[in-house]
C-alpha cells in the first residue's frame, strides 16, 4: 500500500490537522495512535475519501482521494459498527452489492455469505443488528467492508465500545485477515494489537504527526508526548 500526503491541513471551527506530510510505501498495516482529540479520526476520514481536506494533497495507491471513484476502492469499519439497523446482516451487504456495484441477487448473496462466513457469522446472517452482540456486529461490519472488494480497509477504533473479551474476538478476526492482500489503516487504543498487527505506526499529537516508524519505536519513544501516551496505555 502506498500513501502520499502532501501539506495536509484541515479545519473545522479550529485547525484539526496541521501541515501533515507522509510518504509510505509497501507497508501493509498502518496504525494511527494518539490521545483523543489529536485528529486521528479526521486523518482517517480524509485518507478514506469520506471527507475532503481543506488544504493539501492525498494519494493512496497512486489515486487522489478527490477522484470521484476513489471511495469505491475503500472499505470502512466505523466505531459503532454502523450497520443499517433495519436490515439483516445479509441484507446489509447484498443491498450495497446489488444497488451500488450492479451485481445480480445471486452474486451478491454468494459474496455476502462468503464474507460473513469468513467472520464466523454464518449462523447469524438473518438477524438484525440489535439482536446480536457488539462483537458480532463489529465483525459483520468488517464483513461488509470486505464485501466491496476494497484495496484498503480503514478501521476507526473498532473496539472502543466493546468489553475486553469482545475486543479480543474482533481483533483476532482482523489479524486473521493479514494475508488477504489488502492494506489496513486503523486507529486503536489497543497497543498489543498495534504491536502484533501493524508494520508501521504513526503517533499523532495536536493535529501533527510527531513520531512514526515500525512498531518497535513504541518501546523507546523519543518525544515527551509519546512517552506520556505510552505510560497511560500500558
Amino acid at each position, binding site marked *: 500500500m502506498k500513501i502520499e500526503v502532501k501539506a495536509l491541513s484541515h479545519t473545522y471551527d479550529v485547525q484539526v490537522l496541521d501541515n501533515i506530510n507522509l510518504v509510505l510505501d509497501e507497508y501493509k498495516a498502518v496504525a494511527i495512535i494518539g490521545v483523543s482529540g489529536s485528529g486521528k479520526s479526521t486523518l482517517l476520514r480524509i485518507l478514506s475519501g469520506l471527507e475532503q481536506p481543506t488544504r493539501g494533497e492525498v494519494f493512496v495507491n497512486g489515486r487522489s482521494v478527490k477522484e470521484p471513484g476513489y471511495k469505491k476502492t475503500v472499505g470502512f469499519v466505523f*466505531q459503532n459498527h454502523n450497520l443499517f*439497523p*433495519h436490515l439483516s446482516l445479509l441484507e446489509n451487504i447484498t443491498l450495497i452489492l446489488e*444497488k*451500488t456495484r450492479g451485481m445480480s441477487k445471486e452474486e451478491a448473496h454468494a459474496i455476502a455469505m462468503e464474507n460473513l462466513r469468513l467472520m464466523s457469522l454464518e449462523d447469524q446472517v438473518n438477524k438484525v443488528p*440489535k439482536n446480536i452482540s457488539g462483537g458480532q456486529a463489529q465483525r459483520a461490519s468488517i464483513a461488509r467492508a470486505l464485501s466491496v472488494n476494497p484495496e484498503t480497509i480503514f478501521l476507526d477504533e473498532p473496539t472502543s465500545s466493546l468489553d475486553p473479551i469482545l475486543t479480543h474476538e474482533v481483533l483476532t478476526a482482523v489479524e486473521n485477515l493479514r494475508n488477504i492482500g489488502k492494506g489496513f489503516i486503523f486507529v486503536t487504543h489497543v497497543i498489543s494489537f498495534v504491536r502484533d498487527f501493524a508494520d508501521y505506526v504513526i503517533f499523532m499529537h495536536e493535529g501533527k504527526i510527531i513520531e512514526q516508524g515500525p512498531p518497535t519505536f513504541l518501546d523507546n519513544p523519543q518525544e515527551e508526548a509519546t512517552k506520556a501516551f505510552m505510560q497511560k496505555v500500558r
Partner: protein
Amino acid sequence: MNKKVSYLVSVGIFILFAGVVVIRQRTPFNLSLLSGYETLVFEGFRNTIYASFIALFGSVVLGFIFYLLSASKVRFFHAFTNVFTEIIYGTPLLVMIFAMAFVIGPAFINRPSQQEVHILGVVGIIIYITPYMTNIFKSAFSSISDEQYMAMDLFGFTPFQRYRYIIIPQVIRILMPPLMNNFSLIIKGSALLSVLSYRELFYAIQIVQSRTFAFTEAFLLMWALYLIITIPLSQMTRWLERRWALE
C-alpha cells in the same frame, strides 16, 4: 399475583365500578330502550372514523410540509414554523375548531353552508395536530445518524437509493407508533365536532338521548365504542414499538 391475573382483576374492578354507577342511577338500566337507533349510532361511529381519517391524512401531509420548511436553510421558514407551533401549542382544540368554523372560515367563505362548517371543523383539527406531526417527522429523520449518512456516501448510494432503501424504511418504523398515538388523539378530539352539529358519535348519542331519555345506556354505549377503537389502537402501537425497534 401474576401478570395475567393482575390484569383480569384490574379490568374486573372497572367493570364492577361501571356496574355500581349503573345501579345507582334513578331509573333502571334498560338497553332495549336503544333498539331502533342502531343505524343512527352506527352512522355516528362511522362519521367519527371518517372525519378522523381525513384529519389524520391532512395533518400528516401538512405536518410533513412544515417539517420540510423547518428543516430548510431559509431562516424565514424556520421562524414561520416556530411561530405557528407556539400559537397552536397555546390554543385549546375546542377554540381551534370554533375559530376555524366561525371566525377564520367565514372570513374567506361567504356564509358557509352546514357542510362547509363541518369541513372547516375538520380543518381545525388538522391545523391543531399538524405541529405534533411535524415533531414526529423531525425526531424520525434526526434519528438517522451522521455515520449512517457517511456510510451511504462511502458505498456510493444515489440520493434516490438512500431514501428508498435506507432512510424511508427506518423513518416509517420510527414514525408509526407516535403517528398512531396521534390518530388516537384525533379520534378523541373529533368528539368536539359535535359543537358544529356534525353527526359524529358524540352528537349521534346526544340525539339518541334526547329521543329515548336513556341517558346512561346511550352514554355507556358511546364510551364503549370509543374504547373499542382506541384501546386496540394503543395496544397495536405498543406491539409495533417493540417489534419495529431499531436498537
